[in-house]
Structures are given as structure tokens and as C-alpha cells.
């Protein structure tokens, strides 16, 4: 019976490096995959919002209050500001700067915790409880979906910070910091259309 075919060595892979940066790195692609999944989820939730909006005679329905603008504005501003340390830590990770990734990740963690404060007030000032009607349900859905991402990022950044400050950092960990920063950017960018839907669509209709 036949065994594996006869082989001939034509080259070596041993000279290859043992890590990579950016989209050359394998895990970067896994991160993109999960962004695609979550992004699709956001897009579909937004589509559900728009569907209910186009089916309703009035939006928000008669008797429902508009969401207050103050806390949504504060959250959005703070989130956009947080993008600065996110981009800075990305640069530090690519340049393999140890101090930069440690402090940058810590700053992101602090931003994540701080963001939960205006987010909490946003929930309180949405104007309609989730169980009142379809409008209330879908507005809460959008905000809850985004909040789970903020919480996840807070968690991931916090765990990374603890690890980075207590260990010697290798190339794979620089990649992890890169991926975390990219995901943070995704959370920021995903918020913008959702912000428009929650706060401005009912005012425009």
C-alpha cells in the first residue's frame, strides 16, 4: 500500500520572524472577523429601528418624550476624545514602546470607566421605558447593544493593563494592544450612526 509521497526539501522557513505587525499578523484577522460580526449586528439593529420608524404613524409615538440631548452629547464628546489615546497607543504598539503601551492602555481603561457615567445618565434620560412600546424597545436595544461593547472594551483594557504592568512584554502582546486599540476605534465609529438614530432621527421625522 502506498505511504506519503516522496518529498524533496527546496527551501527553509527557519529564517522567518516569529511575529508580525498589523494585517500581517494572524490574530488581526480574527479581530476583524469579530468586528464584522458585531458590525453586522449593529447594522441590523439600526435596520430594525428604521423599519419600525417607517411603519409608525408618528415617531416617537404620540405621548412618548424625546430623548434628552445633554448626556448623549457628553458621552459622544468623551468617546471621541478617547480616540486620541487609542490612536496613540496604537502607534506605541507598532513602534514597540513599552512605556507607551502600558500607560496608554491604562488611560483607555480609565476612559472606559468614565464613559459609563454619562452612559448611565443617557439611559435615565431616554424618555421612554423599554416596555412602553416598540419605539422604547428599539431605542433601548440600540443603547444596550452599544453599552455591552463599551463594557467589553473596559474589561479587556483593564485586564491588559494589569498584565502589561506586571510582565515582560513580547511581540505578541504588542499585537494584542494593537488589536485592542483597533476594537476601541470600532466601538467609537459604531456609535456615531447609532447616536444619530437615537437622538436625531425622532427630531428630524
Amino acid at each position: 500500500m502506498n505511504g506519503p509521497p516522496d518529498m524533496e526539501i527546496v527551501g527553509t522557513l527557519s529564517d522567518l520572524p516569529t511575529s508580525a505587525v498589523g494585517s500581517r499578523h494572524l490574530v488581526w484577522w480574527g479581530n476583524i472577523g469579530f468586528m464584522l460580526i458585531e458590525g453586522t449586528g449593529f447594522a441590523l439593529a439600526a435596520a430594525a429601528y428604521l423599519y419600525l420608524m417607517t411603519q409608525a404613524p408618528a415617531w416617537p409615538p404620540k405621548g412618548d418624550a424625546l430623548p434628552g440631548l445633554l448626556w448623549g452629547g457628553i458621552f459622544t464628546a468623551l468617546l471621541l476624545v478617547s480616540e486620541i489615546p487609542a490612536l496613540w497607543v496604537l502607534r506605541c504598539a507598532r513602534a514597540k514602546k513599552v512605556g507607551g503601551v502600558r500607560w496608554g492602555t491604562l488611560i483607555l481603561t480609565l476612559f472606559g470607566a468614565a464613559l459609563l457615567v454619562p452612559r448611565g445618565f443617557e439611559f435615565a434620560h431616554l424618555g421612554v421605558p423599554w416596555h412602553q412600546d416598540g419605539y422604547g424597545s428599539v431605542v433601548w436595544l440600540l443603547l444596550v447593544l452599544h453599552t455591552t461593547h463599551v463594557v467589553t472594551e473596559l474589561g479587556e483594557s483593564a485586564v491588559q493593563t494589569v498584565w502589561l504592568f506586571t510582565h515582560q512584554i513580547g511581540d505578541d502582546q504588542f499585537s494584542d494592544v494593537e488589536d485592542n486599540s483597533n476594537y476601541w476605534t470600532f466601538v467609537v465609529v459604531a456609535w456615531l450612526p447609532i447616536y444619530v438614530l437615537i437622538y436625531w432621527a425622532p427630531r428630524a421625522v
Partner: protein
Amino acid sequence: MTPDPALEDQISRTWGDPPGLWGFIATVDHKRIAARYIVTALLLMFLAGMLALDMRWQLTVPENTRMTPQLYNESFSLHGSTMLYLVSVPVMEAMAFWLVPLMLGARNMAFPRLGAFSYWLYLGGVLTLWIAHAMDITPDLGWFEYPPLAGPAYSPGHRADIWAQMITFTEVAALCASVNVAATILKMRPPGMTLARMPVFLWAMLIASIMTILSMPAIMLVTSMLISDRMVSTHFFSPGAGGDVILFQHLFWFFGHPEVYIIFIPATGFVSSIVETFSRRRLFGHSVLVLSIISIGALAFGLWVHHMFAVGLPRLGNDFYTAASMAIALPAGLQIFCWIATIWSGRPRFDTPMLWVIAFVLTFVIGGLSGIMTASAALDLQLTDTYFIVAHFHYVLVGGALFPLFGAFCYWYPKATGRMMSERWGKIALVGIVGGFNLGFFPMHLLGLMGMPRRVYTYPTGMGWDTLNQIATAGSVISVLGGLVFVANAVVSYWRGAPSGADPWQGSTLEWASASPAPPWNFTYTPVVHSLTPMWDESRPLPVMEGLASDHREVLITSVTDAAPLYRQKSTSPSIWPIVAAVAVTIMFIASIFTPWAVPLGSVLIGAALTGWFWPLRPRAKQGPLGRGA
């Protein structure tokens, strides 16, 4: 070149699994994980088949009181849900898990622990549904539970919640598996396997994975919205409170239609591989096949409204979805042309895998054509929700996915086990399964045209439906008997089949370059590829590269389009974290059927498990200022 025994010994120790139960639980070997997926799915297929026989028996005579309506309704719900969520998609993922690294000359998947996690979470979904059945809280509203029937007002209790959460399990598992497969295919190809030299099978698995990523969020979202309506009084689907019942259908079918192509497209990959090897010539129309798969994948997202033609949506939309649903027949038809053209210009051999391909063409085309009939929004108003549709979807799913799967099973069985299945019993099983299936399901087209709706636990006397129902039952019984022969063949051949050697069929692609069964690390050296059919190339010996580490687990990462070697990536060893994380997620999912507090509390548990999973194992800083590590 003779293999170096010292090298093989070291690699074997690096890549081997720990023995016993610990190795079973902690393994990240893609072949072992795929095997348990396949065994689980086949067992569930058997259970679903038993449910089907029970229903067929009930429908053999009119006004039958043997089964209560409650039991029957549970049966069709459990049968459909099991086959669609727990068998068809998972088994295709499993075939990808098993074959993709082998066909790429790679040592493992991109994310080995994620693969193990996918299986354990899938198992959680299986247990959720079937333990619920054992406890008599079986879901009973079909495999797509429309509100308001599935809402809190008309279905109190937890049956509908069990269904919705089971889906969450299986969809998270499938999404993780898809990211894994896609990353492996994009980043771990052998040197020289540019996208243009990538076999059709890998294209099929890549497209199916991307489709999964883009469609499954829809069903996750909609089942969560349903649970939310039922548990915390949201009003997504309450018509009286500004919600919309049809929103559920749009979101569900936005997933539901791509889902059936996610099941079918891998099957086209199986057919392509088998046709190439058993025609003994390279596939005709490689670019047509690849473009067809890509266009089917894209078109599949634009068809979902054809499941809603009877809802009363605007006519202009129905016209568009009719045209789009018919248009998908073009790439599907061209694929069939290419396969037949390969046979026409080849030297066909009629071993069992090729016979399954023939059965596939004969059967699937009937299903495809009945699909063209239902693609017409107008004609569908007579055909939808009747036994015509039951016939249609069984023809495309059984003929279009299961027959290629059985062929693939026979084809790659020697690679997995080192043994050949019996040709004689394989042919007997095929005749039973294929003949029984057609006898059982063809009459259903007529039953639908004669007015028999679907999902009915009985029907009146005097409608003229009796004889056809009896024929359908007889055919189903024959088909199941054939299935039992198939399984018996597989089991007996494991111990008594003829030894196969590495390449019993003279296959064209790289998996045939490894030993049979493949060792845990698949390949000692990394193949270099110069064509679509590397095993048929003139150049012998097979060109390979050495240099991947043998003292720790390492895989080769290459570039996306040109497969140029980029770097060597550490590959994870056996780990407890996948099962721990899966248990944490299972606890959260099941508890959230009973209380919403399970979500925040469960998340803490999951966070802990994920922290353990991703905690990098590098040395802690010793003394002095923290600095850069080696």
C-alpha cells in the same frame, strides 16, 4: 528524501495530546474536534430521522389519533430545529475543520482553542434542546417560531425560550468556527498557493464562512428580541404597541435564506473535489466554479423575501425578489454544467463517492427546479406552506447537501481512519437512501398541489391524500434503513476495512500527501504548491520546505493573495480554557431563560473564563524596573 526519525519523534511529542480523559477534554487537534462534531451530528441526524418516521407513521392514515397534536407539533419543531441548527450547518463546519488544514498542508487551524470552544458550545446547545425534550418542555412552534404565536401572550412557559436560546448557542459556536475557518484559509496557505491556485473546496468553505459571519447576527438579534418580548415586556413584535410582527420575519429570513446556502455551498465544494479525483482530470471551468460560488453567496443575501410572498408585501418588491430568486439558478446551473463537463472529458470511475455525486445531480436538480417554481411570487401563493414546499426543501437539503456529504464521508474516510469502507455495502446503502428518499418525497409535490398544507398532525378522509401519504411513509422507511446500512458500513470498516494507504484514490489535492490517518501535526514539512492539483503535478518528488520548529508548536503564516511566507506563529497547546469558557457561557445562556439577571452575572463568569484563556504566559517581571522582554 527519507524522513528523519529523530525529528518525527520530537514533533510527535510536541504535537501529541495528553493521554486519557484529560487529553480528550483539552485537545486542540482540529481532527479530533471535527470527528466529535461529526459523530454528534450523525447521532442527532438519527434522532431527527426517528422523529420523522414517527410523523410519517401518524400521517399514513387520515384522522389518525395515535399522536396527540401536541406531540406531533413538538415532533416537527424538534425535527426541523435539530436538522437545521444542530446537524446541517455544524456538520459542514466540521468537514471544514477537518479538511482545511490538511488541504493547506498546515499543522492546525488558525485558532485551535476557539475550535474546541465551538464544539463544547455546540454541545451545550444540543443538550439544551434535547434535555428539554426529555423534560417535556420541547419547543412546539416550528423551526422558525413566528410571533405573535411565539410571543408571551400565546405561548406562556419556557418552550419558546428553550428554542431561542438553543439557537444562541449554536450561532455563537458557528460564528466562532467561521472566523476560524476564514482566517485559516486566508492566512495559512502553503507557499505558492495563490488565490488563483486555491482549490474550489477551499473557496466554498471561505465563502460559506463569510456568509455565516454576515447572516448569523440576524438570527441572534431576532431571537434575543423575542426572548426580550417574552421576558422583560419589550414590544418589538407587538402589533398593538407600535411593534411589528413582520419585523421578526424580515430579520429571521435575512438569516434564514443565506443559511440554506451556507449548507449548500460546502456541498458544492465536496462535489468539486470528488468529481475532479474520480474523473481523473482537473475540474473544467475552475474560474466559472469559483465565480459561481461567490455570486451565489452574494445573491443569497438578496432573496429572503421569497419566504414571505404570502405576507401581503408591496407588489413591486415581490417582483424584484421573484427575479432575484430565479437569477440564482444561473450560477447554480453553470456549476452543474462544469461538473458534467469534467466527467464528459475525463475518465470517470464509479466508486461510491462518484455514485453519490450522480445521486446528488439527479436529486438536487429536482429540488432546484421546484425552487424555480416557488420563486414566482404568484405561483408561490399556491405552493407555499403546503407539502410542495416540504418536498422542495427536502430535495435541496437532502439531495443538495446530504448526498454530497455522504459522498465526502466515503471519499475522505480512508484519510481519517486509514481504512477503506466496503464498496458493496456502500452501494447498497446508496440505493436504499436515494431510492427511498425519492419514493418518499416525490409524492409530496403532488400532495401539495392537491391541497395538503404543511404542519398538520392529521388530515380528513375523502381528500384523496391517503395513498400518496402511504407511499411517502414507505419511502421514508426504506431511506432510514439505507441510512442504517451506511452507518454500519462506517463502523464495521473502522476495524475490518482494507488498509488504504496515504492516497487510495489518487487524489489531486494536498490532504492526500499526508499519511492515513494523518498524525496530529498533519505534515512534517510544508508543501510548496505550483498548481491547482499539486498531487498530479509532473514534478516528483513533492517540493517541500523545512524549518518550522519541532520543539514547540508552530504554524506558518502567509500573505492573503500570494501566500508568500510572512512569519511563524506560535500555535496553542491543549488547554482547559475552551471547555471552561463554554461552561460559563452555557450557564449564562440557560439561566437567562429564567431570569434576566443571568446576563450581567453570567457575564462576570464569562469574563473570568476569557481572562484565563487569553492571559499570556510570559515571565513576570523579576526585580528592578520593568523593562522590555526577550
